[in-house]
């Protein structure tokens, strides 16, 4: 089996360059590649275009890349509460393209499945449709949306093996599997890295062929954005 293991986040992103396009997995702060984001901050590369469903919070996740002004453009469906984000957007330092969440996911899918474009009804009749081809199938209108092109996809999984196979845990899965299929180079950080052969082939979520570099991450904080509880005695 082909060995995809690198030493850590810094080695994994060593050839990432100013001005490139990255996909970053995660939904909110759940399932984000914490180690690689920290390494990107350390590396200090600039003018990045980031495709990610959200933009983190001020002091965690992609918010860290915004703080250090490394992001030129965000492509997201929801940018939430992030004061630094808002400041950069209003000052014109940051460009933002907001697209429907399903369109975001499906444009990743299209890239990973080798489909140059897909059709979705999301956004028909809204400003999202501006400049896009509208096509009628069976009496319903759809927008044609293009597959993403990303220089790197950076994802976080729960377990992975040396051959690059990935298994995600719970809703930390979210965008990670579709982004993993969509990068020209895909980097996976995992909580536990095992030898090829230790994972059940039937339970692999992302086959290793899609993953170019893999390493076991350290010190996961896994910050909770909206801790919501019910009382013990309802």
């Amino acid at each position: 089996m082909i060995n995809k293991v690198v030493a850590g986040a810094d080695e994994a992103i060593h050839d990432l360059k100013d001005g490139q396009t990255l996909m970053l997995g995660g939904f909110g702060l759940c399932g984000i590649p914490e180690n690689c984001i920290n390494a990107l901050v350390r590396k200090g590369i600039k003018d990045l275009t980031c495709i990610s469903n959200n933009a983190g919070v001020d002091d965690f996740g992609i918010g860290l890349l915004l703080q250090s002004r490394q992001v030129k453009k965000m492509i997201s469906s929801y940018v939430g509460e992030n004061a630094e984000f808002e400041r950069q957007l209003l000052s014109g330092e940051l460009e933002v393209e907001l697209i429907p969440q399903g369109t975001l996911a499906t444009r990743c899918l299209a890239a990973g499945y080798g489909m140059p474009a897909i059709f979705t009804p999301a956004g028909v009749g809204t400003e999202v449709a501006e400049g896009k081809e509208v096509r009628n199938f069976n009496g319903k209108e759809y927008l044609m949306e293009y597959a993403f092109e990303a220089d790197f996809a950076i994802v976080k999984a729960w377990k992975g093996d040396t051959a690059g196979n990935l298994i995600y845990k719970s809703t930390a899965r979210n965008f990670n599997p579709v982004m993993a299929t969509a990068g020209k180079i895909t980097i996976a950080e995992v909580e536990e890295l095992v030898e090829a052969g230790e994972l059940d082939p039937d339970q692999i979520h992302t086959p290793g062929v899609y993953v170019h570099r893999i390493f076991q991450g350290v010190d996961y904080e896994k910050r909770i954005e909206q801790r919501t509880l019910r009382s013990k005695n309802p």
Partner: protein
Amino acid sequence: MLDKNGIAKRIAKELKDGFYVNLGIGIPTLVANYIPEGINVVLQSENGLLGMGPFPIEGQEDPDLINAGKQTITTLPGSSIFDSALSFGMIRSQKIDLTILGAMEVSEHGDIANWKIPGKMVKGMGGAMDLVASAKNIIVAMQHVNKAGESKLLPKCSLPLTGVNCIKKVVTELAVLDILPEGGFQLLERAPGVSVDYIKQATAGRLIAPEDTPEMKFD
């Protein structure tokens, strides 16, 4: 006049046994608290979960298990986890029977605006545009008038649209209304103590309001 929980409780009566349901943020989330006895529904969260359970008790929260509002949640027996592409795949292919979401404005033609106010910081549409464009059955839960006292049920939306010609039913603190295929709000039920005249004054869009419109019934 209903409070938020009243609106949620009234909407919960629309749930049918066997429904898969997507609940938006705000009042729609409250609907989960009023699912009628004997009605089995499965809640979908578009970040990749079918079979969403209640919020966890303290100490049981799992940072890897959240809903589309980023809240910690739990799963119920029979739940399944999947990626975002499949999640919106099942939404687009209309496997979700009912979507309930909030709105800033709804038009008499079923258009909805709920994601952007010009001049204000835009947070994004999230999954709302996918949901309203795909769902076969959408109920809007919202206040009948805005804070300035202006009707949110309009001839035409003034805000940027989320979706066109897609809303079938609106439940507010004042009324239950269907949106007719040919356009117009059909008043179906009045909230307790609310008169037809009051609803007429609070509705800017075309309203069909029979004088004998019944009051809502609970339980």
